């Protein structure tokens, strides 16, 4: 009995001292960042990591977060879910990291979110799109500083219907994995709600990482649908666009909708023709119609180009949002805590009640941890200033119009979308200037 008492006393003391320690300003704020540095998704992960290094360095030069310098450790998401999780736990439990930025892959977000909750670690989901993670469970420690798949897909449908109201057939060529399947489901349900007479003529799901789409392209040429949707990314998207261009699919009159092609524009160079609908999973673009002349944004584009040789693409902007969001969250939590260093819980709470702005429009965070980020879509155009296609006829869709309300679930909500949404005066359009 005495032993038990002693043990309890020790436990209480340790707990209390641990708690007190959390309130003291640490020597540095350790954060863990998971990103793809191997595998096909490193087309996103590597530029995002470069952006993180750049931005953290800058942040630290200006005093860090609340006067504390940020020190980041990176984990490769390419090692697979199980290994990622053990690396994640190792960082938290052995190195005392209490703030994680994770992840790019929706699969990985689904894996880390419950673990973060369990370990009481603040987890900022910085790039993954799956709407399910925050809709199916309420988390205390998990937030997302950008839009989700529903916001992205509903905005894409809106843009398509605004620019091409009259079409009757659609075909889809998406990657055969969670994102390819889920994005099509949301897109189709939204489209059916707004335009019930649309006919789906082909649903094709080639393998993730497929190197050959010639059969899919032949079939599209034989079917001649009015609209072709392809939500793929990276090498898959590049390959599809190239093979489609080589075989004249773009000149057959179908409207191509490529919601992630902002991240491929520079690489595709002259291959991507005019008149293709492209998006970038949010409102961030180095030629963002509202923020391209803001000094901070121009500075970021210049520094990123100097560091990597390329223009920033959406994952780098998502990284910027996560870091600015984290800083804003910490600083507002410090304020709320009377100037004292906050616990992860306090930061997580503050991050649900804040607004922050990186290089796009202001992002508003919701009580369920979901960020409301506007969506930017456009139609490709060739101009003399750039050796690759730029976005023209751009439209900014405010996120609150196209995001499932708190407490509701996307599959049911998108079916209730009404056609008068298309007439909203909050859909702003911009031409390339």
């Amino acid at each position, binding site marked *: 009995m005495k032993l038990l008492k002693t043990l309890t006393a020790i436990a209480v003391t340790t707990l209390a001292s641990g708690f007190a320690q959390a309130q003291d300003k640490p020597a540095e704020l350790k954060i863990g960042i998971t990103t793809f540095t191997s595998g096909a998704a490193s087309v996103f992960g590597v530029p995002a990591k470069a952006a993180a290094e750049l931005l953290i360095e800058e942040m630290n030069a200006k005093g860090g977060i609340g006067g504390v310098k940020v020190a980041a450790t990176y984990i490769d998401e390419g090692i697979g879910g199980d290994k990622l999780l053990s690396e994640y736990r190792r960082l938290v439990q052995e190195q005392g990291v209490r703030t994680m930025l994770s992840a790019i892959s929706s699969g990985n977000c689904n894996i880390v979110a419950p673990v973060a909750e369990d370990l009481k670690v603040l987890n900022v989901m910085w790039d993954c799109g799956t709407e399910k993670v925050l809709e199916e469970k309420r988390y205390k420690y998990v937030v997302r500083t950008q839009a989700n798949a529903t916001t992205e897909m509903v905005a894409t449908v809106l843009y398509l219907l605004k620019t091409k109201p009259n079409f009757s057939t659609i075909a889809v060529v998406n990657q055969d994995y969670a994102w390819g399947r889920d994005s099509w489901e949301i897109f189709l349900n939204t489209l059916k709600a707004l335009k019930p007479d649309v006919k789906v003529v082909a649903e094709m799901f080639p393998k993730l990482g497929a190197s*050959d789409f010639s059969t899919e392209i032949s079939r599209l040429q034989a079917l001649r649908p009015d609209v072709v949707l392809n939500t793929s990314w990276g090498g898959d998207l590049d390959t599809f666009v190239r093979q489609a261009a080589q075989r004249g699919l773009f000149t057959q009159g179908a409207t191509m909708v490529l919601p992630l092609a902002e991240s491929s524009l520079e690489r595709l160079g002259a291959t991507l023709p005019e008149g293709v609908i492209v998006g970038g999973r949010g409102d961030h673009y180095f030629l963002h119609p509202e923020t391209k002349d803001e000094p901070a944004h121009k500075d970021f584009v210049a520094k990123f180009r100097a560091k990597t040789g390329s223009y920033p693409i959406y994952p780098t902007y998502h990284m910027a949002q996560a870091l600015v969001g984290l800083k804003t969250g910490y600083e507002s939590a410090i304020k709320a805590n009377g100037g004292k260093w906050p616990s992860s819980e306090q930061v997580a709470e503050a991050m649900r009640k804040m607004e922050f702005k990186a290089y796009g429009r202001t992002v508003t965070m919701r009580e369920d941890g979901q960020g409301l980020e506007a969506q930017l879509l456009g139609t490709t155009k060739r101009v003399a200033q750039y050796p690759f296609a730029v976005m023209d006829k751009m439209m900014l869709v405010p996120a609150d119009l196209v995001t499932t309300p708190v407490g509701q679930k996307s599959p049911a909500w998108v079916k209730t979308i009404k056609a008068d949404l298309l007439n909203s005066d909050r859909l702003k359009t911009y031409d390339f200037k």
Partner: protein
Amino acid sequence: MNASLFALALMDGVSYAALLFLVALGLTLIFGVMRILNIAHGSLYAWGGYFAATLGMGIAKFGLSPMLGLPALFVAAIVIGVFLATVLEFALLRHILDKDPILQLLVTFAAFMVLEDLQRMIWGVQPVFVSDVVTQLGTLSVAGVTYTRYQLLLLPTVAVLAFLGLRWFLGGTALGRQITAVTHHREVATAMGVNTGRVTWLTIAVGGALGALGGALASPTTSFTPGIGAEMMVLSFAVVATGGLGQIGGAALAALMIGLTRSFAVYLMPEVEVLVPYLIMVGVLLVRPEGLFSTAAARRI
């Protein structure tokens, strides 16, 4: 499905099978002679593609004649294939010939990972492609569907030539017969005076060049990204296993089966497209565990 769609599926299937066959041919050739399943073969595919793209970019950058684009693909394949295969053979493969198959698999897998990392260091992670060759050769229209000549004519031609050439080489030349002899029994061949070391190196070089050629010929239509070697490795292994390890004719037939079934699947049942190679492999191996073209193996005591 009408006749014209049938024809379309047939053409797509053949051109896909052509590339698959080239890579699988290299893999099966090396296995035939060394009895090693060379996982690093996937890297040869990737390196061949990346190197061909580099040459293609070089041609564009230095303003050389675009006519050089097509020969450059073959040059890239031979240079990188022979070079890497030679390094692999002298540094690794010849030292593990007598080892346990599991160990051989692990060693070549390790080599694959090393090569994959080196490839990332050299070419980075952004997708790489150079497609001038395809544009030059132009397109042709079949039943209202546009095809590239490159894909419809060039790829199958190269595959058929590689198949016939290799058959002739193995059956009709002294060196080729030595390779066949080593395939049958290494020790007996050595006893008969065949220089097995040289024959082995030659096979690996040819096999490596074929793998790299698959990559080089894919590079004008496919974006090369990290991980592409692993994809091709798995697929070409499915071809080789279906055809029978070490069987050239088997690899050709299996590649055709997989290519055609896959393209018909895209038209008829897109859902199963991804599964097709493996369904075929399982189906064949259930009936013929040694693969399509297996020969009766003499029992060694």
